[in-house]
């Protein structure tokens, strides 16, 4: 590798950084003011590329391209304003995680809308009129458009910086970032402020997406990739800091470029291909930054958001009615193999539901009572699944032994990652857990010799007598019931109370001798261990395991399940996981546009039941119970 090659890759990195910066800056601005982590921000970015493509090809010429980019930014800005007015405005008072759920639903809807409008093919835009050539630098040819991208990002940064520093709107935004209640109390119209900030953020994302049109094809997978990258950039730079976002975008793009430039290196005893580390690299950068500077490079501790959500009611032991209900459900499930003799698919689906229930219940254990909003629970699912599969394949473990050992693999992972994660809180904890999950995913994906890479591990079938679907279903049921009851028992024991104490008031918990970090760490480990059970069961249920099954979307599925059921109730995750797993399965087979349908269903549920399904049911039963007629 020559110095010239390295410098050339560094320039390449700078032009990539501009795209990262635009999307991250918008995300950061929106979070700073509204405290909403807009998962749909990647979708707005993607829309930007598609709209700019259409304008550039339909109108054509220099005006179609350059005018199209400006127009695209404005159009996406308007879309952002509409999203804020129609949807988000209704849920500012909902628990923060609910807002995440709503924006995730938007991801699904926008993705299918794009598929419907533009079709599934990648669309490569025309070259930029006036900048179609290339410049000779370091002995290689760099497209002059890339050079333009390198300069446009700092230019926008400077404009934004002065707008925030000098204008009245900028001052309001900075004030709202520090203390939005106070800004509201001073008579500022928050609705207008929030809408315009959201529109501005969307405009930046649209601009970023539009600028990519001459560089990369418009692609339907861009949304999740872009949002993942943007999360990392925002967290590394510090939430709410535009300059931090720029700095972080450059660092991350450069680290990736460096990995590519280094390429294959022979370290004597082992050959490492660094260009394959690009996936892991950004998340390792993020993990290091978060551990050294918990609020990002230029971030400050977040201003306290005075809780708007109603605090949780004390947990009570199961009422007789709930116990009866649980017993009835259990009996029905035990009888399911008999009931479903004619349609064997029911048992396969039911097994999937059980696995989802364990997954969601273990996630709820740390999210609800622990207050730790993990965005990377798929990591422990993956460790369990790969643990079980590899123990069978490589170590020759019998099935049951593998199923019992798999959770221990997940436990080890959770102990390691949890130790770092509990040092942070809120959005930063969420992002660090996401980073760890991506590291696990990338390791599995890139360590081909051990894990089979993208093909995964196949031929992990259950041994007799569990090779019959009814027998495997009953096995899964046994694991599920035990996992649920044990976790529930823990929650009612002093440990579970201590976990809630640490969530309710860390200061007060420490003041009565509770080591909050230690308790939350152990809670994290327990949840990871139980999640490993779900992973092990999944591997044998499918007969295989691949990186796809442990990707980001599984972590998001878990969040959706928990929130759907209601985070403040203990049966919530069970209800949520069942509803979601069945919905996903049935909706998916109905239509090509299942994502949009699922998204719409989630949106309706979010708007109709801000406490989740189980939360809404228990609120309803309390209401009925209080009626004079009911008491008499």
């Amino acid at each position, binding site marked *: 590798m020559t110095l010239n090659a390295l410098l050339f890759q560094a320039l390449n990195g700078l032009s990539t950084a501009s795209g990262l910066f635009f999307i991250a800056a918008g995300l950061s601005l929106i979070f700073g003011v509204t405290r909403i982590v807009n998962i749909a921000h990647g979708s707005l970015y993607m829309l930007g590329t598609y709209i700019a493509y259409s304008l550039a090809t339909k109108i054509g010429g220099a005006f179609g391209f350059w005018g199209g980019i400006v127009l695209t930014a404005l159009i996406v800005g308007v879309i952002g304003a509409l999203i804020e007015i129609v949807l988000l405005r209704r849920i500012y008072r909902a628990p923060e995680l609910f807002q995440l759920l709503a924006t995730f639903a938007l991801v699904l809807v926008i993705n299918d809308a794009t598929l419907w409008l533009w079709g599934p093919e990648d669309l490569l835009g025309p070259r930029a009129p006036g900048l179609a050539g290339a410049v000779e630098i370091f002995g290689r040819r760099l497209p002059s458009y890339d050079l333009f991208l390198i300069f446009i990002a700092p230019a926008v940064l400077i404009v934004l910086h002065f707008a925030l520093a000098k204008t009245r709107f900028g001052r309001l935004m900075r004030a709202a970032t520090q203390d939005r209640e106070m800004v509201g109390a001073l008579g500022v119209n928050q609705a207008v402020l929030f809408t315009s900030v959201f529109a501005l953020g969307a405009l930046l994302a649209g601009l970023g997406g539009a600028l990519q049109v001459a560089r990369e094809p418009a692609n339907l997978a861009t949304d999740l990739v872009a949002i993942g990258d943007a999360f990392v950039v925002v967290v590394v730079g510090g939430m709410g800091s535009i300059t931090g976002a720029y700095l972080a975008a450059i660092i991350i793009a450069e680290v990736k470029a460096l990995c590519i430039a280094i390429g294959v290196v022979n370290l004597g005893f082992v050959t490492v291909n660094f260009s394959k580390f690009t996936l892991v690299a950004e998340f390792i950068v993020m993990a290091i930054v978060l551990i050294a500077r918990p609020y990002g490079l230029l971030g400050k501790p977040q201003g306290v958001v005075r809780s708007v959500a109603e*605090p*949780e*009611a*004390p*947990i009570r*032991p199961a009422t007789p009615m709930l116990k009866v209900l649980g017993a009835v459900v259990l009996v029905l499930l035990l009888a399911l193999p008999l009931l479903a003799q004619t349609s064997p698919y029911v048992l396969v689906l039911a097994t999937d539901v059980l696995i989802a229930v364990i997954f969601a219940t273990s996630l709820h254990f740390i999210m609800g009572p622990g207050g730790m909003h993990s965005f990377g629970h798929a990591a422990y699912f993956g460790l369990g699944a790969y643990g079980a599969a590899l123990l069978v394949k490589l170590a020759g473990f019998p099935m049951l032994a593998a199923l019992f050992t798999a959770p221990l693999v997940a436990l080890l992972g959770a102990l390691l990652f949890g130790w770092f994660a509990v040092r942070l809180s809120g959005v930063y904890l969420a992002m660090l857990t996401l980073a760890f999950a991506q590291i696990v995913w990338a390791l599995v994906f890139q360590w081909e010799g051990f894990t089979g890479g993208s093909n995964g591990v196949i031929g992990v079938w259950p041994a007799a007598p569990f090779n019959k679907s009814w027998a495997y279903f009953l096995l899964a049921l046994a694991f599920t019931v035990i996992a649920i009851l044990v976790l529930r*028992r*823990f929650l*009612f*024991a*002093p*440990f*579970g*109370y*201590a976990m*809630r*104490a640490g*969530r*309710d*008031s860390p*200061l*007060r*918990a*420490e*003041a*009565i*001798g*509770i*080591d909050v970090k230690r*308790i939350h760490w*152990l809670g994290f480990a327990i949840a990871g261990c139980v999640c490993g059970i779900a992973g092990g069961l999944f591997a044998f249920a499918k007969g295989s395991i691949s990186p796809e099954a442990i990707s980001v979307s599984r972590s998001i599925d878990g969040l959706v399940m928990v929130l759907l059921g209601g985070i403040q109730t203990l049966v919530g995750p069970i209800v949520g996981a069942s509803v979601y797993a069945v919905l996903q399965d049935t909706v998916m087979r109905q239509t090509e546009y299942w994502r949009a349908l699922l998204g719409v269903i989630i949106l309706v549920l979010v708007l109709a039941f801000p406490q989740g399904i189980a939360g809404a049911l228990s609120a309803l039963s309390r209401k009925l119970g209080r009626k004079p007629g009911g008491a008499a």
Partner: protein
Amino acid sequence: MSVLSVRSLSKTFGGVHAVNDVSFDIGKGEFLALIGPNGAGKSTTFNMINGQLTPDSGDILIGDKSIAGMAPRDIWRLGVGRTFQVAATFGSMTVVENVQMALISHARGILGLWRPAASLHRERALELLAQVGMADAADRPSRELAYGDVKRIELAIALANDPQLLLMDEPTAGMAPRERNDLIKLVKALVVERGISVLFTEHSMDVVFSYADRIIVLARGRLIADGNAAAIRDNAKVREVYFGTGKTFQETAS
């Protein structure tokens, strides 16, 4: 021997001497008030004693054990109870569960994974609640309580580990005058009964001068007076920091 000794304690925040060479002692069973105008360093002193801040220099002794820089939870284990300036409970628990948590922690049972917490130390928790007059509210969610009642719960929690020293940061802040007197009377009665030493900060001079055994006064980070109510009332320096010397008025008049 004194229960708590503070020796030459100092803390600066970016060049501001919040607390500067402060020393005092509390004897067994003593009810000691720490007063001073805003910004005098009361809360900083307090937070160094309860472990939330680490002193820059000086020492804090409980008996003969140094606690400077120890974590709050370890200081609590040495028999130091505390209440907060802005009272807080564990909002997702009932009143009695709040007290039970402190009792479970005191018995080192926090890591218990099996026996339901609600059944542990309930009798003792109810006893403590009865002592602060909150037994009737035992099974109500603590988030529903009025602020004055939350202050009483805090007191019950602070008494759960049989403390020898109680730290109360503005125990009556945010309360009506009537409630204020009742609470301090209650604290005084409980500590006399149990022989607990109390260090408290307070803005209400009525409360301080009627109940404290001894008063220490901080101003701009320094300890300027230490004595009983009568001595403090007549102390010229104390009058100066609270009321000024009157010189400014004389100068304009002349």
